[in-house]
């Protein structure tokens, strides 16, 4: 069953449904990622924050091991290890030098079977509450969260990944176990390895470590949804500046137009030569302005954020609206498009210099589309995407259907 695809990837699906994917390279390190197709969008209201909380609790130990045992085992390999949770996905990842890599896969897979002891849940809840407080203290994070909730208007992509204080308080071991049983199944998981791995070793460890894993469980829903349009603002306290966020509809992670969307985002939102940069940053209206494309499972969005003096907010909003309207009217120039292509190609090449830099790209591609490209193939796709693809995207006038949210400091 061990196979190698046309692109040179190792890949295999175990009888329990766990997918394995490998991309070899001439590196001194090995990176391993364990991705689950579950995130904040899959939580019911009473489970809000569960996926992120479970990501924390994964490091608190499985049956027979405590947090310190888990952490120390990674340290013995000199491994860099971490995890993140998004709306779509949970990714645990680790990298080690080739000569120390041997048990890395086994250890990473063990994270997926946390013991969820009550005392660990109670201590870690305090950590997550501090994380929520930290995000609350950063006005730009607060603005982004509020903007997302409004733009996605009832769609689960608008829910905060961290959950809320109230939802965290209600997440005890039994509710977490139920959520875990429903979603952290073998057929929702992908084990991805990159760099100087030994494929036979990876397969053997994956088989042994996931022997008791079962497929099935919950299914993601894709509710019908209409993005909110227009502009809203609120006043708040605890900050001095106005924080403004824009959202607009965009292609999904599965849509072939996703590369054109990434290029279009760069034309308008490249943080040192995009149209917004020249309209807002170059004259010193804001200290930073970027617009990016966020492809999610089934639906995507363009997102942008900037911070300004409260007195300049209207001018910032009007200027940005004019930039986006002109882009929709005239489209990108061929020269802008070519520059965006080269910039994106360089970034893909830079990210591919480390095995760790490939994990997110590979796991997203495999889970969202069941395929993966090498960095060279991605670069070729980027360079082969014509400017007409950008013009086609703009025919739907995505930015006219966009939403703007501003969080402004209380007057006085």
């Amino acid at each position, binding site marked *: 069953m061990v196979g190698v695809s046309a692109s040179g990837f190792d890949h295999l699906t175990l009888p329990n449904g766990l997918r394995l994917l490998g991309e070899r390279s001439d*590196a*001194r*390190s090995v990176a391993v990622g364990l991705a689950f197709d579950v995130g904040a969008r899959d939580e019911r209201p009473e489970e809000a924050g569960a996926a992120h909380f479970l990501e924390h609790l994964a490091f*608190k130990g499985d049956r027979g091991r405590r*947090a310190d045992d888990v*952490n*120390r085992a990674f*340290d*013995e*390999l*000199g491994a*860099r*290890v971490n995890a993140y949770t998004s709306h779509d996905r949970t990714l645990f990842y680790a*990298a*080690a*030098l080739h000569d120390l890599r041997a048990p890395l896969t086994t250890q990473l897979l063990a994270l997926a079977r946390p013991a969820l002891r009550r005392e660990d849940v109670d*201590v*870690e*809840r*305090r*950590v*997550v509450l*501090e*994380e929520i*407080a*930290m995000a*609350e*203290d*950063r006005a*730009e994070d607060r603005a982004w969260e509020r903007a997302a909730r409004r733009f996605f208007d009832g769609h689960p992509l608008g829910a905060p990944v961290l959950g809320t204080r109230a939802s965290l308080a209600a997440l005890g071991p039994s509710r977490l176990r139920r959520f875990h049983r429903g979603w952290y199944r073998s057929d929702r998981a992908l084990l991805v390895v990159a760099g100087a791995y030994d494929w036979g070793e990876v397969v053997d460890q994956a088989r042994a470590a996931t022997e008791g894993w079962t497929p099935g469980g919950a299914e993601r829903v894709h509710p019908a949804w209409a993005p909110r349009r227009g502009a809203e603002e609120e006043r708040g*306290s*605890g*900050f*001095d*500046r106005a*924080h403004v966020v824009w959202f607009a509809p965009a292609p999904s992670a599965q849509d072939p137009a996703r590369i054109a969307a990434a290029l279009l985002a760069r034309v308008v939102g490249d943080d*040192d*030569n995009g149209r917004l940069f020249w309209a807002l*940053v170059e*004259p*010193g*209206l*804001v*200290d930073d302005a970027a617009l990016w494309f966020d492809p999610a499972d089934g639906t995507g969005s363009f997102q942008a954020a900037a*911070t*300004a*003096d409260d007195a300049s907010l209207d001018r910032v909003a009007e200027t940005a609206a004019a930039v986006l309207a002109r882009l929709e009217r005239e489209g990108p120039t061929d020269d802008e498009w*070519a*520059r*965006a292509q*080269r*910039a994106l*190609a*360089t970034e893909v*090449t*830079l990210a591919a*210099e*480390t*095995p*760790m830099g490939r994990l997110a790209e590979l796991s997203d591609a495999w889970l969202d589309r069941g395929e993966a490209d090498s960095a060279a193939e991605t670069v070729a796709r980027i360079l082969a995407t014509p400017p007409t693809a950008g013009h086609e995207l703009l025919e739907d006038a995505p930015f006219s259907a966009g939403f703007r949210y501003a969080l402004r400091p209380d007057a006085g």
Partner: protein
Amino acid sequence: MPRPPVDPLDVVLPNGLRIVAASMPGRATVSAHLRWPLGTAGDPADAQGTAIVLHEWLQRGAGELEARAYADAFDRFGARRGGGVGREHATLGVACLARDAAQVLPLMADAVVRPRLEDDEFEGARQLALQGLAAVADAPAERLLEAAVAARYDGEHGRSAWGVRAHLERLAAAGVRAAAGSRVAPDGAVLALAGGADAEALIEAAAGAFGGWRGRVAPTPAPRLRACARAHRGGHGEQTHVALIETAVPPRAAGWTEQALAMTALAGATAARLWTVVREDRGLAYDVGSAIHVVADDAYRLTHAVTAPERAGEAIELLLHELDRSRGGLDAGELRRSQRLLRSSVVFDSETSGGRAARLASDVVRFGYPRAVERIEHEIEGVTLAGVNAFLASRPPIEAAVVTTGPSPAGAWSA
């Protein structure tokens, strides 16, 4: 296949610019990292923020190209730019495909060798510096760092890294342009190059591009330490940010590598002591850490945690206790794990051309010479348990400045 260590190439141009280069066979990119002594600590006392405005202005058009054409020229190669200004130095960075390096390096050089510094571009650069300064108010982590530095240093090095609003508001193009002559100069500058190209060819290309850079830089004053035991900067927010600052061993002193290993056991490992006692055992903070900061010949350790005001006092006591406990030494397992972690970390960071170039530049500034990755690994592996513990035992009792920002801690550490 192990390769013998190849030391990076290291040359000094007649104009004083130091260039170091390392070849990374098989890499598709080349990164360049330029670092020179343009920082806010060198700004005139009544014009703080000059360095920030100048650094921005330098990049707004150079050589024959006005601002936009200059940015477009990098983009045509897909070259990615970076850089920033600190209290002591400024950086400019670029990453591009290896095949384009010989054409991108001259573009990069133009920012310092042939900046246009046009009047039309000055106001935007000045406004941008004002925006950066204003943004610090809403950035709690940056506010803590500012307060910590002010507690460590008197005078120039204790200033804000973002300038002073009143000074920025009255800066004029003529004054900043005049400052460029003594603040954008090749002596004291380091250019580090790394990536998938022959190191000698990279140096040759860089020498051609930067060889015409002229000028002598005015020296930055040496940092002066301040006696400060407790400081608090109030502010809004839900969380108290805590920093403990104490003197550490600087890079050229004996014990630097031992200190790095002890720091890994304290704060760099997944099972690091601070992480375990603050986060795993008590759930006191989401964000806790400790790092060595180097400023000229001075080094200090900054240990931080972010927590609720009512728990901040407990966090401070716990951090002080752990810092003091570290003088008691590591066990054999801790040293072994720290050595593996530090060695991995050096290799990981050197897998990218950008990471390699940044480390080469920092090696030159900190140690006076660039090191091969294998050489750094060897230094790490050469530390013995007796050696690291003798170093830790020789450290003085902890005398940390305790700095807090945001809401005041409750209880004994109340501001």
